[in-house]
């Protein structure tokens, strides 16, 4: 659970790095997206590893939750969890389920259309018009188009808030689970808390920026 979580946290940072270029330089975003979408190593090796990591993480999460619920068959009449632990730490399954639902939407929005264009239609050009080499890359245009809908932007923002909640506990917790607890732990914990807030906030900023800076039609 901890190792797959750390892997996904690393991936999230990489995903954010590429996405933030859409705000700074659409051309860079297009080039990096094209590289990631057509590079054999990324597509044939890293992408399956990532999908396996995502599936493994949430399946293990469900198994862990079921086993832990079974460990206390009769619940307390009175239980004050908030006196000794954070809401985020006690409700990883809730934040995780929201993120899982969001991943479904995210795959429907970006991953499934990409797979369709590249591997079913056979268009690996990445161009807006595959018959016109001067039409430019399609990635930035598609990204902006997705963030036209305020409802979709709202869902993305909500999901990223829950991602921040999930990471707030999960990132630091994964180091404890792998046995990392020494003189550097305090500094590392500070970094994990910063990361847990900064990265989801960054994604929210990108979604809002793209929504309010639509391309002229």
């Amino acid at each position: 659970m901890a190792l797959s979580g750390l892997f996904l946290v690393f991936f999230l940072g990489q995903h954010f790095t590429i996405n933030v270029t859409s705000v700074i330089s659409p051309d860079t975003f297009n080039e990096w997206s094209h590289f990631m979408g057509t590079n054999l190593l990324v597509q044939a090796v890293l992408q399956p590893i990532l999908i396996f990591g995502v599936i493994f993480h949430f399946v293990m999460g469900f198994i862990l939750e079921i086993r832990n619920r079974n460990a206390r068959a009769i619940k307390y009449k009175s239980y004050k969890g908030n006196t000794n632990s954070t809401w985020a730490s006690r409700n990883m399954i809730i934040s995780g389920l929201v993120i899982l639902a969001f991943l479904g939407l995210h795959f429907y929005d970006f991953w499934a259309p990409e797979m369709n264009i590249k591997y079913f239609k056979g268009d690996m050009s990445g161009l807006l018009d595959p018959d016109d080499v001067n039409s430019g890359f399609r990635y930035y245009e598609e990204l902006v188009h997705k963030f036209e809908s305020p409802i979709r932007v709202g869902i993305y923002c909500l999901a990223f808030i829950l991602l921040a909640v999930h990471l707030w506990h999960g990132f630091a917790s994964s180091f404890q689970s792998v046995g990392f607890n020494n003189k550097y732990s305090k500094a590392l914990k500070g970094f994990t808390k910063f990361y847990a807030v900064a990265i989801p906030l960054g994604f929210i900023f990108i979604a809002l920026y793209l929504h309010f800076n639509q391309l002229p039609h």
Partner: protein
Amino acid sequence: MKLTLKIWRQANAQAKGQMVTYPIDGIEGDMSFLEMLDVLNEDLINKGEEPVVFDHDCREGICGSCSLQINGEPHGPDRLVTTCQLHMRMFNDGDEIVIEPFRAKAFPVIKDLMVDRSSFDRIQQAGGYISVNTSGNTIDANAIPVEKEDADDSFYAATCIGCGACVAACKNASAMLFTSAKISQYALLPQGQVEATTRVLNMVEQMDKEGFGNCTNTGACEIECPKGISLENIARMNREYLSASLEG
């Protein structure tokens, strides 16, 4: 002080229990929580009713016998104390106090507020010891030098009284704080190195067999532990387990 007690009553392990309300009067702030229950039981006995069964022994925070989930927290609202050390001054006149047994599949209720914590004994028996030849050639433990920091950490781990508050507090009913403390107290000493690999593997295996949940690092156990056993012990146990698993 006048209080309303809501206490879990259960005739035996198989019976279906329920919360029963008892009004109680004449409670003083200097009384311990168990003395308050003694007053209630005296009253119940005088009325010809069955007294409330609860665990207790030393009544000075050493033995780990007393338990009780009091108003949703193991050993009640105070910190670093057991139920026997909890004073009634922590409560106010007119308060309602909910008293339940420690809840976990691995801690079945025997009667009322008394639970069977022998699962802890079995975890301890699985490896919480060192094998020493006592044939007459035993080496004095003090003859082996130990780093002060390690000796202190080992001692702090050994202060775990095995009361089960960690399990009771954990939303997953995990026993990892207890097990890790019992592993750490040996893992930190040279005397514990000989059986280090088998110890951690066997104790964790037994912990899982007993039906305890898994640690998700909420930290509730550390906060509610009457002896302040640190989460560092769980990280140490995870390290020991990982390295023991790799060694095979």
